[in-house]
């Protein structure tokens, strides 16, 4: 006995076969979409490194710029009769600005995240969280603009620094760009801590702060560290804010009241002017590769920490 066809006149076997083929085709297409993320990351690596390669392989490029020279030449003067590509001042500038940004943003973001997850009433939280999403939504070029036009003058009048655009200004502006990242990751981590830990602590006679500080924060520590790392990567790679707010002088001094220039700003400011394939072009791609590597390592570390947090809270 064969079952009656549901739709008379349709060859069900053929229909099924076609359907199976279609299903397989779709699965294949979706898999290809997922692969696009892998391909994207690989292509970024390949093509950024490829354009930097002449520094290691081309004798002509090496006449102007060598890998060793990056760290032994004291100055960065790419546009002159005898171009100098010393990246130490740029690394110092990057470090200075990022350090200022982290020193300001991490305590504020972590404290605010504690406030949002541990102390704030639901009403307050409903104000705070969208505000931070707004801050995250402000384009970095607008933050750079604000630092350039407004913040620089305030900071100068408070510190009496001779230059308006300096590492302090850029770092503070950058901290505004980093705050939402650190806050969001920290707050997520804190809220992922089971309520039972808080209840246990409070039932033992701990105050709310003691509970937050001794129980919730340590339990979420991996997530908080991940937030700080992601913020660090973001600060190191951020371009428009520092390009507009730092003054962009590759001085290599230690003072935050001097102008400074970062890896990212150097690329942004100079690449548009260079001849494709010239030594300067390769050097700028080398800086890009360096930036990629630094942020990549930080991001991988942050990813590992997040995994650890997840496992730990899962009760391993």
């Amino acid at each position: 006995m064969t079952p009656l066809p549901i739709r008379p006149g349709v060859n069900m076997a053929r229909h099924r076969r076609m359907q199976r083929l279609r299903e397989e085709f779709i699965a294949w297409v979706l898999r290809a979409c997922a692969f696009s993320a892998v391909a994207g990351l690989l292509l970024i690596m390949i093509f950024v490194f490829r354009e930097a390669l002449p520094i290691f392989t081309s004798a002509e490029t090496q006449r102007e710029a060598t890998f060793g020279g990056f760290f032994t030449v004291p100055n960065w003067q790419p546009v002159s009769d005898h171009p100098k590509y010393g990246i130490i001042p740029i690394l110092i500038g990057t470090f200075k600005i990022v350090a200022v940004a982290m020193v300001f943003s991490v305590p504020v973001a972590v404290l605010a995240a504690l406030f949002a997850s541990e102390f704030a009433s639901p009403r307050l939280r409903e104000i705070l969280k969208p505000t931070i999403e707004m801050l995250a939504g402000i384009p970095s070029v607008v933050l750079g603009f604000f630092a350039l036009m407004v913040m620089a003058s305030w900071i100068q009048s408070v510190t009496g620094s001779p230059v308006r655009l300096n590492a302090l200004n850029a770092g503070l502006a950058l901290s505004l760009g980093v705050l939402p990242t650190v806050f969001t990751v920290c707050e997520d981590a804190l809220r992922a801590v089971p309520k039972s830990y808080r209840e246990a602590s409070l039932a033992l006679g701990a105050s709310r702060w003691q509970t937050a500080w001794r129980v919730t924060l340590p339990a979420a520590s991996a997530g908080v560290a991940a937030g700080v790392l992601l913020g660090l990567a973001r600060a190191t790679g951020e371009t428009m804010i520092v390009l507009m707010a730092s003054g962009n002088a590759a001085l290599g001094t230690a003072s935050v009241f001097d102008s400074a220039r970062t890896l990212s700003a150097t690329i942004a400011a100079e690449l548009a002017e260079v001849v494709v394939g010239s030594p300067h072009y390769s050097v700028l791609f080398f800086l890009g590769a360096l930036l990629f590597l630094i942020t990549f390592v930080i991001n991988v570390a942050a990813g590992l920490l997040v995994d650890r947090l997840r496992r730990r809270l899962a009760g391993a």
Partner: protein
Amino acid sequence: MVTDVPTIRTRLADAPATDPAATPPQASPPHLVARDFHLFYGSNEALKGVSLEIPARTVTAIIGPSGCGKSTLLRSFNRMNDLIPNVRVTGELRISELNVLARDTDVVDLRRRVGMVFQRPNPFPKSIFENVVFGLRLLGVKDRGELEVRAEDSLRRAALWDEVKDRLDHSAMALSGGQQQRLCIARSMAIEPEVLLMDEPASALDPTATARVEELILELKSRYTIVVVTHNMQQAARVSDRTAFMMQGELVEFGDTRQLFTSPHKKLTEDYITGRFG
């Protein structure tokens, strides 16, 4: 409103504490008192006028069907319900002379006097030692020697010392469920509370671990006033001196455990304990 709760009127609030073993439980002065206590979650009335008096150094079991308000009542005595938004209470709760619900009552001090053990073991993701001394550190005890002595004492009283004495610095999360629960009991006892509230302390444990926790409750009775919520009537019969039966937010019957289980005053109670329910 419950009218026939078999309570004994307090004589003197400061009557000298008598040897609990020599005196029947009813003779002690009341330690925990609830009078016409109502609790609302938003508009839902979870406790509808509960009144009871629990003498010091006794074990009281609270039984009743799921959702009848056992946990809610228990959590009211150390004001854990403060953590839940939109909770409203009326009536009176007292622990000895302390007015629990008063606005100026310091909840942190209150909770230091009232220990709580939760249904699911909830050790902190810290070492065993740090778990036990958590409350002591909050009280400002810094001396390492004192912390160690007190930790050992608590762990011994929780019948856990022999199992963990060689790995005090290991993570508490690696202990078994039963060990974790006893650790949580040790943690509560370390700060020498007067009252221990236990919310189904054995429901997540296997029979062996349950037996140990029950033994522990009986031992601890000489030092603490214990209130234990349980779903298990045999357990209530084994560990408690007095039993309270609740239903739908009301205290139906409260009295001597043996009597409540053998000849309850109320039909409802009888139906519940004989399993003739619903």
